[in-house]
């Protein structure tokens, strides 16, 4: 190694530390510049809104949302009129719950309007009961039952903005090929038709049984069959009441359908995987959300566009029933301007915006007047069916433990669907697990 002469530098350890400290301070200052900028000389109140990313249900103004220019202009006009600036945080839907949990746990203000889907009872102590302040004409235009998943402890904490109930999608071409004119009216026909159409590599039924928990998970699917059988999840005391003949019947139906169900179903985690099978023409029937009507009929992604039918769910012993996707807006308690937040929600529920929501993005409106609008019904051929489905029970049985309960219940149901245990044993085990969970919360 060559000998190196050391030149006495000005840098001693002290100056290095000093400069590091200065740099760190500079970094912190730079990081907070946006906050300072917002604080200095802004008349408009900022409304922070947490919603999912498109194509999940979003209000106007969210990037990539497909609202018309007219609606976007109306949104801009609303902001000007109300001296507000709406800032969206729109993560992908699966990340919403984690973010919300971290936000609420911090105890600091983060958002003024928060989208919820089945989490209202869970976060009920962080939300404002604002529903009573909504104008009467708006309330009259909303289905009363839509508030059942948003009410906890007697307080109504959110408002659903899209009628999203599970209905049955069926492939008209496949039915015609079998000479069947209409989709199944009841469980008996469902079993029979599913069997009939399972041949040549195609199946009668497909659904995503891969995710046990949440709304849209296998437990929630079973809950729609449970209601069709006339059963219920909880008794008046809050304890599980689903280990009943009705519950067993509901599960048995799902088990009976398994030989006629696309085998990938037990691994499909998202509704999209199941819908892809349906849209490729490989399965004749499925339960699905109203929004999926759009991609199922889109020639760019679907092989069966124009052949899709929407029908009421086949009736069980107690008639037809469904579950509520419960896409709702809420207002956290620590919002600095809840009145303005309320106004924003009213804007989202404005008839023109609701109509645009349906026509432009494919998410059905919640306002009954807009649902009955002939233009809306023409654009979304399934709107009338969903509206009719809404005349029948559609409880999602949401409680604060919904995630944990559906995780336990759903896992047991998955075992039954895989043939590892029978329906009666499954519900017995599930009931014990859920009882334990409910007791822990009490």
């Amino acid at each position: 190694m060559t000998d190196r002469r050391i030149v006495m530098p000005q840098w001693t350890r002290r100056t290095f530390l000093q400069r590091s400290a200065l740099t760190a301070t500079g970094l912190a200052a730079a990081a907070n510049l946006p906050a300072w900028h917002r604080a200095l000389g802004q008349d408009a109140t900022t409304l922070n809104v947490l919603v999912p990313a498109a194509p999940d249900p979003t209000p106007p103004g969210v990037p990539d949302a497909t609202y018309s220019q007219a609606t976007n202009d109306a949104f801009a006009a609303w902001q000007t009129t109300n001296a507000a600036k709406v800032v969206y945080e729109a993560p992908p839907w699966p990340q919403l719950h984690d973010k919300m949990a971290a936000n609420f746990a911090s105890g600091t203000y983060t958002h003024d309007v928060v989208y919820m889907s089945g989490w209202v009872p869970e976060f009920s102590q962080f939300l404002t009961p604002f529903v009573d302040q909504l104008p009467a004409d708006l309330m009259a235009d909303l289905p009363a039952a839509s508030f059942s998943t948003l009410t906890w402890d007697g307080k109504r904490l959110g408002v659903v903005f899209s009628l999203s109930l599970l209905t049955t999608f069926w492939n008209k071409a496949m039915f015609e090929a079998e000479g069947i004119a209409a989709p199944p009216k009841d469980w008996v026909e469902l079993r029979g038709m599913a069997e009939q159409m399972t041949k040549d590599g195609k199946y009668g039924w497909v659904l995503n049984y891969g995710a046990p928990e949440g709304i849209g998970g296998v437990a929630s699917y079973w809950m729609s069959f449970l209601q069709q059988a006339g059963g219920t999840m909880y008794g008046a005391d809050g304890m599980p009441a689903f280990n009943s003949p009705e519950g067993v019947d509901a599960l048995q139906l799902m088990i009976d359908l398994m030989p006629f169900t696309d085998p990938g179903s037990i691994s499909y985690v998202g509704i999209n995987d199941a819908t892809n099978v349906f849209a490729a023409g490989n399965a004749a029937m499925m339960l699905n959300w109203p929004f999926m009507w759009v991609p199922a009929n889109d020639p760019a992604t679907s092989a069966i566009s124009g052949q899709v039918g929407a029908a009421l769910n086949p009736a069980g012993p107690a008639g037809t029933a469904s579950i509520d996707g419960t896409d709702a807006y809420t207002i956290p308690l620590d919002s600095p301007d809840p009145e303005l937040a309320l106004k924003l929600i009213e804007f989202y529920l404005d008839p023109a915006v609701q109509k645009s929501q349906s026509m432009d993005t494919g998410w059905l409106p919640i306002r009954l007047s807009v649902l009955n609008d002939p233009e809306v019904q023409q654009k979304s051929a399934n709107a009338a069916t969903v509206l009719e489905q809404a005349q029948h029970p559609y409880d999602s049985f949401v409680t604060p433990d919904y995630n944990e309960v559906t995780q336990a219940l759903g896992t047991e149901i998955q075992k039954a669907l895989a043939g590892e245990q029978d329906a009666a044993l499954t519900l017995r085990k599930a009931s014990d697990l859920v009882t334990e969970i409910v007791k822990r919360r009490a």
Partner: protein
Amino acid sequence: MAPALLVLLGVLAYPIADALILSFSDVRFAAGGIQRDLIGTANYERLLADPTFALALRNSLYFTLVEVVAVTLLGLAVALLLNTPSGRKAIFPVILLIPWALAPVANAVLWKWIYNANHGILNAIGLQLGLIDQKVVWLGDPWMALNMILIADAWKAIPFISLLLLAGLQNIPSHLYRAARVDGASAWGRFRHVTLPGLRVPLLVAIVLQSIWALKVFDLIYVLTKGGPRDGSVVLNFLAWRVTFNFLDVGYGAAIANVLFVLMFVLAIGYVRVLDPERQRRRRAALPAADPAEVTA
């Protein structure tokens, strides 16, 4: 050094200590944030009785053990291949760097696509080659799903281990091999008595590092199976996340994480022992590896 330690302490030690306290508490989400009440060891007692925890522990141990063995053996095979005359081309280590550099999320997304029951290439290849007669739902059976995740993780992990072992191989003085050949040792004998002892440190490093990384697997499970089917791919790390963020049972989640931490800590101790310079110097001094008599023994 002080600033480095301060940062680490601030960023990590505080939350870890907090997590420890959380594990002894009952944590509820209440208006204004989190409410905590110390409840002693109740969370840990619940752990012992929880069948899902037992399942997660079994899965974690199985996953770690199998992955470490597979990755070490395959990594060694690749390193040996790359240490041959044909393998010494510069392109090969470059090929190794590509899977290594991929983001775990990107890796997960790639394998999710490969394993797709309907459109995945694995089924397509299997059908074409006649290995399977109908499409297999790779992620549909709990046991298979866990192993498919293992394959995806191992694929990404082997490059690092290979490079590590390759560096180790190249560090073995060639005169040892010459001496062994002179003494008439066969290829296997040379491997056993020169290569393996020379690779002792890198192998141990590889084993310990890979164990720790295997225990930390998360992105793959999150993207591919979310713990399913039927909890078949639930491992400790994932369970801690699910309990904390899905069920908001922060105290219990902290308890699970602490168990995992202890497991990793034990491994980390082993790791530092292996790398301890004092011990290594002593060991090197004691090794009679240069003695030809030892090699032919």
